[in-house]
Structures are given as C-alpha cells and as structure tokens.
C-alpha cells in the first residue's frame, strides 16, 4: 500500500497558521495608537546640558523686564543629567524674569496652526509667583506674546508641571516658552518637553439641513411678561428681566414698575416687586452673584423741552436667592444710562449718564464691594469728565478701563472717540483709529475670546440725532502693543430690510447684539438701520482666530432694534428679547437661537468637578466623558442697549490626563473679575457642554 504524499502544509496546519495570524493581527491592531508625532520632544537642548560660549544653555536666553534685582545661573543640582537652570529675583520691583527658548529658526519649536501641544517642565520654586509663558512667531507680525498658561505651586522637590496649549493660532509657524518668575525667590527648571497632543477631530455628520451651517431660531410660544429692556443672567441660570416703567410714560405716571425672573428650564416667569423706575439703570453682577443696580429713570422729558430725562440716584442689590431688591446707599449723582464695570478687586466703577437735572453726569462713581456702599465724591478719584451715555468701559488686564467708543445716543466723545482711563493714576489717554466715531451710537464692543488676548472688536453703529444709514464698519484693537491703535476690521455682512430688500454695500446696522459663544466665536445678531426704525435681518459669526465673519446665519424672525438684547444661556443657546420701535410699541416675543455647533454631534459632559470655589492661580480638576478641545469660563450677561462691557471669555489652559482634566485659572483678577462664571468644555467635535457654575475669587 503506497503512502500518499504528505502535503507541505496540512489542512490542520493551515488552520493553526490562520488562527495565529488572526490572533497576531488582533493583538497588534488592538494596541493603543499614539498620535503621529506625539512622542517627539520639540524642545532644543531640553535637559540644558549643552552650554554656549557664555556658559548658558544652548537654545536658551535670559529674558525679562523691570527694576527687580535678579540673577540667572546654571546649577549642578539637576532633575536629571548634570545641569539645571535657575532664575533668582533677589529684590522686589517691577517686572519679571524668565529663561526662554531663543526666538530663532534653530531653537524655537516648529508648530502647526490648529494643533495643541503638551508642555512640561520639571521645576522647584520658592515663590508662587511663577507662570508658564508663551510667545509665538506670526508670519506677518514676527514674534508676539501669545499667552500665559499656568501658575506653578511652591515646591522644594523636583516636580513636573504639564499644560496643554490652546490651538495654535493661524499664521503661526514657531513658538517659544519658558517659566516666568515675578516675585522674590528662586525658580529652578530642567528637562523641558513639548509634544504634539492634537486630538483627532471625529468624523462629523449633520442631518439638520440648513441648521448645520446656519443654526436655527425658535420663537418661544410665550411672551415676556415685562418689557425686557435689561437682562441679567443669574448665577442659578435664571434671567432677570428688568423693565421698570419700560419706556412707557403712562406706567411711569402710575408708578407701575416691573421686573421678572425667566426660568429657562421650564419656560416660566416669576414677577419681582420693583421698588423704583429701574428703566435706564446700569447693572452688574457682584462677586457674590447678587446684582448691583444703579440709577434709573427719575423722569421722562417734558413735551415743552424744559427738561430731558432725569437720572435717579437710587441703587439696589438684587439677590437671586430671594428674588428681591434691597436698597443700598444712593449714588453720588443721578444716573440715567450709566456704565457699570466690575474691577479686579470686586469693586464697581460707574461713569456717564444723565444726572438728576438732565445734565451730563461727570462724577466717577465707585461702589466698594467690601463696604457694600457707594463712596462719596471725595472718596473716589475724580476726573470730572463726561463719558456720554452707557459708555462701554472694558476692564483691561492691568486694571485700567478701555473706553471703546461704543455709546448710546448721538455723537461720540470729543477727540479720537476712544481712550484708556486709569482710575489709579486718574488720567485719560486717547486711543486713535476708531472710524466714524460719531456714528458708533449703539454699536457693540466685545472683549474678544479669549480675554487673555486683550483684543476688542467694535461693530457697526449709527447716530439717532443725525440719523444716517447705520454702517457696517468694524474696528479691531489689540491692547497688547505699547501704543494700541484701532485698525479696520472686516465689514459686517449685509442683511435685508423689511420686505426682503437687500441692504446696499454701505448700509449696516446699529442696535447690534454680540454674544460670546463657548466655541470661542462671536455671534452677532439683530439691529436696525435708523433711529428706532427699519430692522435689519442679518446674523453672522465672527471668528477671532481668523478675523473673519461667516455670513448667512439664520436670522431672528422677530425684529430686534431699540431696547433689544441677546445673551448666552448656560445651555449654549442664545436668547434675544425686546424691540421698541418709534411708534411706541414693544415686542414682547422671546427668541432662542441654537448655533450650528448644537447640530454637529453629541455634547461632552462635565461628569465631575473637584470644587466650585476657584482661587486665582489655582488648578481644579474635572472629569469629562469625551475628548476635550478647550475649556473656558464665560461671565454671565448683564446687557442693555448693546452694552455689556463685562462680557468675557477666559481661557482655562488644560492639564490633560485622559478624561481627567486640570483647569488652570489665571492669577490675574483683571482677566477674570471675581464672581460666578459659566464653565464650558468644548469637545474635539467642536460641540460645547452645558455649563457648570463656578465661583471665582
């Protein structure tokens, strides 16, 4: 019996080999993937071991400014290797010192716009006054300051600190960074790392049709019970709507003054007893979340022209816990259309408006949060300047106020129409470049996201007195250079007038509403072409990163001109209220806008938070359920007449460890004045979470 030839590989063997290959492939493919390039340390001479001819590490230089006493050194007490680097500030004075990467093509790490990088450094410091600082190379501007990321805790042991950068701005090809020390003490660093940590953007699909790119408006099936001339988002997510007499002289005569709380969660309202005519008041949230309301309407103008509007001196604090107003001491002067800006110390400055005699109010009115009272005239610094009506006074990172030129009614202030007011030094310095400064009546200015970037955009405007067509000019100012100057921004997109008539190329709008969104963009909506007439139907999205408007967003079907406002809700939508045309009617409808990001996929969730009381310069931990692109604090709105100078978006640099994220709050209260903020995270799909409330300061 002949034996059959044995096959080279039997059927059983083939099966085993196939099983082995499949198993191998499964094991190989199942291993976690590391993003391309994530492992490459981009820092030159990261261990500081190579020294140049001066004895300082190659690729590093000694930087800083000011009058402090300081010394840089290479030490022999490293974290690893043989060398580390120290910076000592030996005597207090102004300024800071930092060892930074050299700004040249050889040493500065190359980066890709839109990417994010994890920066880490091993350090020891005897002072808490330290911060990781970044500069970027802009292909058009050269080297410019970018941002500060995180304070480093005091430690005598070598400790590693890691922070993720925001997305690298467009036109950036290189960055440098280092650790700044700005207090007396010694900082020692070693073993720097910089790795590309860009999270891949997920595939996006959207089945919502036009809403995918334009967003969508919904007019609520209920009306506001009050004329919503003033709107304040409260620390509990409700909205205080203040009418007072609501620009209705009959209600004024009858002493019928109204406010209401809107509860977005269930679409209901609670009426609030309103002690005076708070129509035309100013308002701002205090550090404890209560609302300081100042001034208001003491009288309407006389038909014979014997007097105009008169300002109230009354001031109240509204408490969201009890939904009641409590009176505080009077202001030093009547205030009809006053500004209200919270300072970094929690105090409030109010400027401008009309006094009790209808004349311009020239006092600087200062509310001490510690004393819970308005200071007397002689207790506050006085410039005796008239700042106009509802002047937009934006808190700068050094505590000065930037008057953007946005105002209400008529011409701008004499001179350039914009300035910087230094309350401490009691000086005012003009700022150049604002175009059509006498046609910025009810334009809107916003401190662009993030607040750390210190840029302000002023949009549109008109003039109710000369009544030209409102324009569509925007002007942009960067408050970082030594001499900031407004420069021309992109024009706002044109809209349509009643009947669908398109605007001409020169026509724009006043009564502008601009709302900072959690994704870092600015939604502008509403407006009109003339004094209390001719609504403009147009909405667009401004992107601070690219300085461009995306036109053609969905428009509010309700006209929104005089006495209209829009504001961000904690769920990421935008609410718009009010319209008071010249014929004396008032539109009580309320609209809600869902931006395109709400149609682009699942929302990330903040599933845990270490605490809700945040001190400046501290880090707090959250848990999330999806990869996160960025996190930020947004101050809740307190808006009227296209004016909300306290609106701001504060970036929170992240320390990422999977779904556990450390959020680093700035040490500078002028960037995030004390109070309650909405904490948002934004997923890698660009979709923001619903906000959690945290208290800063």
């Amino acid at each position, binding site marked *: 019996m002949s034996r059959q030839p044995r096959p080279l*590989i039997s059927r059983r063997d083939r099966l085993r080999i196939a099983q082995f290959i499949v198993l191998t492939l499964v094991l190989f493919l199942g291993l976690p993937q590391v993003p391309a390039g994530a492992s490459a340390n981009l820092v030159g001479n990261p261990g500081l071991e190579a020294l140049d001819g001066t004895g300082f590490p190659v690729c590093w230089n000694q930087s800083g400014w000011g009058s402090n006493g300081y010394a840089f050194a290479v030490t022999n007490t490293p974290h690893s290797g043989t060398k580390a680097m120290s910076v000592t500030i030996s005597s207090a004075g102004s300024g800071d010192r930092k060892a930074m990467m050299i700004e040249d093509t050889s040493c500065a790490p190359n980066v890709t716009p839109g990417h994010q990088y994890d920066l880490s450094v091993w350090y020891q410091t005897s002072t808490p006054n330290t911060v990781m600082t970044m500069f970027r190379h802009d292909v058009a501007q050269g080297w410019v300051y970018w941002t500060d990321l995180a304070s480093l805790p005091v430690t005598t042991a070598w400790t590693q600190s890691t922070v993720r950068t925001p997305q690298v701005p467009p036109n950036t090809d290189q960055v440098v960074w280092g650790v700044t020390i700005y207090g007396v003490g010694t900082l020692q660093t070693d073993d720097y790392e910089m790795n590309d940590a860009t999270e891949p953007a997920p595939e996006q699909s959207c089945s919502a049709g036009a809403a995918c790119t334009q967003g969508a408006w919904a007019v609520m099936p209920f009306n506001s019970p009050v004329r919503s001339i003033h709107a304040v988002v409260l620390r509990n997510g409700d909205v205080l709507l203040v009418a007072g007499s609501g620009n209705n002289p009959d209600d004024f005569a009858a002493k019928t003054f109204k406010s209401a709380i809107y509860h977005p969660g269930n679409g209901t309202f609670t009426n609030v007893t309103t002690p005076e005519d708070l129509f035309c008041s100013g308002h701002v949230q205090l550090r404890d979340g209560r609302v300081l309301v100042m001034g208001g309407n003491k009288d309407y*103008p006389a038909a014979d022209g014997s007097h*105009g509007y008169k300002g109230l001196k009354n001031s109240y604090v509204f408490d969201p816990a009890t939904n009641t107003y409590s009176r505080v001491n009077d202001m030093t002067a009547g205030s009809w259309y006053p500004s209200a800006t919270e300072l970094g110390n929690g105090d409030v400055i109010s400027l401008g408006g009309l006094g009790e005699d209808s004349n311009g109010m020239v006092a600087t009115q200062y509310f001490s949060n510690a004393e819970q009272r308005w200071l007397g005239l002689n207790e506050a610094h006085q410039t005796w300047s008239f700042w106009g009506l509802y002047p937009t006074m934006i808190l700068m990172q050094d505590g000065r106020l930037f008057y953007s030129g946005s105002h209400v009614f008529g011409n701008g202030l004499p001179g350039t129409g914009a300035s910087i007011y230094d309350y401490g030094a009691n000086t005012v310095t003009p700022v150049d470049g604002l175009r059509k400064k006498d046609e910025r009546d009810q334009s809107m200015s916003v401190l662009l996201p993030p607040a750390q970037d210190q840029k302000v955009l002023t949009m549109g405007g008109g003039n109710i007195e000369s009544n030209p067509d409102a324009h569509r000019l925007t002007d942009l100012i960067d408050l970082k250079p*030594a001499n900031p100057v407004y420069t021309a921004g992109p024009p706002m997109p044109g809209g349509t007038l009643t009947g669908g008539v398109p605007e001409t190329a020169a026509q724009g709008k006043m009564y502008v509403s601009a709302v900072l969104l959690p994704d870092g963009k600015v939604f502008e909506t509403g407006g009109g072409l003339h004094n209390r007439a001719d609504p403009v139907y147009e909405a667009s999205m401004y992107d601070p990163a690219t300085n461009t408007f995306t036109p053609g967003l969905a428009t509010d079907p309700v006209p929104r001109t005089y006495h209209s406002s829009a504001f961000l809700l904690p769920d990421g939508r935008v609410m718009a209220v009010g319209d008071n045309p010249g014929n004396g009617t008032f539109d009580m409808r309320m609209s809600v806008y869902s931006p395109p990001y709400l149609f682009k996929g699942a929302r990330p969730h903040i599933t845990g938070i*270490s605490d809700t009381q945040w001190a400046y310069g501290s880090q707090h931990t959250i848990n999330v359920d999806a990869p996160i692109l960025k996190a930020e604090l947004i101050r809740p709105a307190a808006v009227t007449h296209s004016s909300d100078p306290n609106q701001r978006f504060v970036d929170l640099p992240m320390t990422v460890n999977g779904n556990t994220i450390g959020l680093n709050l700035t040490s500078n209260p002028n960037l995030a004045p004390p109070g309650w903020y909405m904490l948002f995270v934004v997923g890698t799909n660009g979709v923001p979470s619903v906000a959690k409330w945290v208290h800063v300061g």
Partner: protein
Amino acid sequence: MSRMRYTWIGLGAAVLCAAATWTVVDQRTPDPRLLSTPAAAQASLGATGTSRADQAADRSVKDRAATPEKTTAAAAKPPKVHGTPAPFVQPFAGQPGRARIRPGKSPKAPVRVTPNVDGCDRNYGTKAQCVPVTFPKGVTDRCAWLKAHGFTGVPVAAKDRQNLDPDKNKIACG
C-alpha cells in the same frame, strides 16, 4: 508538519511580535534629552540624576492619583493648592509718548445735554412715541414714512417744528 516547521513558524511569529512591540514602545518612551539635543551635547548626558525609570515612576504615581474611581471622583479630589500667586500683569499698552489728560477742577457749569437726547421730537406724538428729530436721509415724504412705520393719528403736542400739520388741526399728517 515536522517539528522543524513548527519551530520556524513560531520563530517568525516571535519576531513579528517583537517588532510590533518594539515599534509601539519606541513611540511611547523616547529619551527627551536624546531626541532633540544637539549631537555634541548628547555625549555629555550622563547617568547621574533621576533616571527615566524614576521619572516614569513619578508620573505613574501622579496618574494613579488623578484617575477617577467613579464619575464623581473629581468632586472628592481637593483642588491643587498653588499658594497664593500675586496677579501676573503684563506691561501692555503703556502708551509711551502719549499725553495724559489729567483731571481739571470740579466744573462750575453743568454739561448741557439736549432734552431730546434720544433723537425724538417731543413736539409730536404720545409720550411713548418717537417721531425722529431728523428723518433718515432720502426721505422726501415724511408723512408717508411715518405711516409706513406705524404712526397713526400723531398729535402735535407742542410746536409744529417740522411742518407736519399744515391744516393746523393738531394732528400731524392728518
């Protein structure tokens, strides 16, 4: 299949696994000093100081501490105490060379603001209405404009400053 064949297949698989492991591990744990330190400097990187293993151990402790045990783990974790850093303020916008406007004396005369600061001509309409002091440029028929904007039966409350009541019946455009 002979033992020899099994041996070769097993060896090949081991090489494949080793290569895969090497590829992944190499991506994950580079020596940060060696990767981008100039070649001349790499020679001086000695074995003193903390080793990479030590660093990894430090990181692993940190990682464990930060890992939530449940979805609300962060709520139980105290915030990282940073001491109390002073505000870090940048020297921006110093405006060198710009003249500072310093305060004058308390004004003796008030800053006059026109009673119709809101652009409304109070000679016309109800107190709640706002007939513009200046009609928009290009408006030739002001009565038609008022009608188109919802004004009807506009009373003349004081002087007929804009000649909207030619028949003097105290109703503008009517």
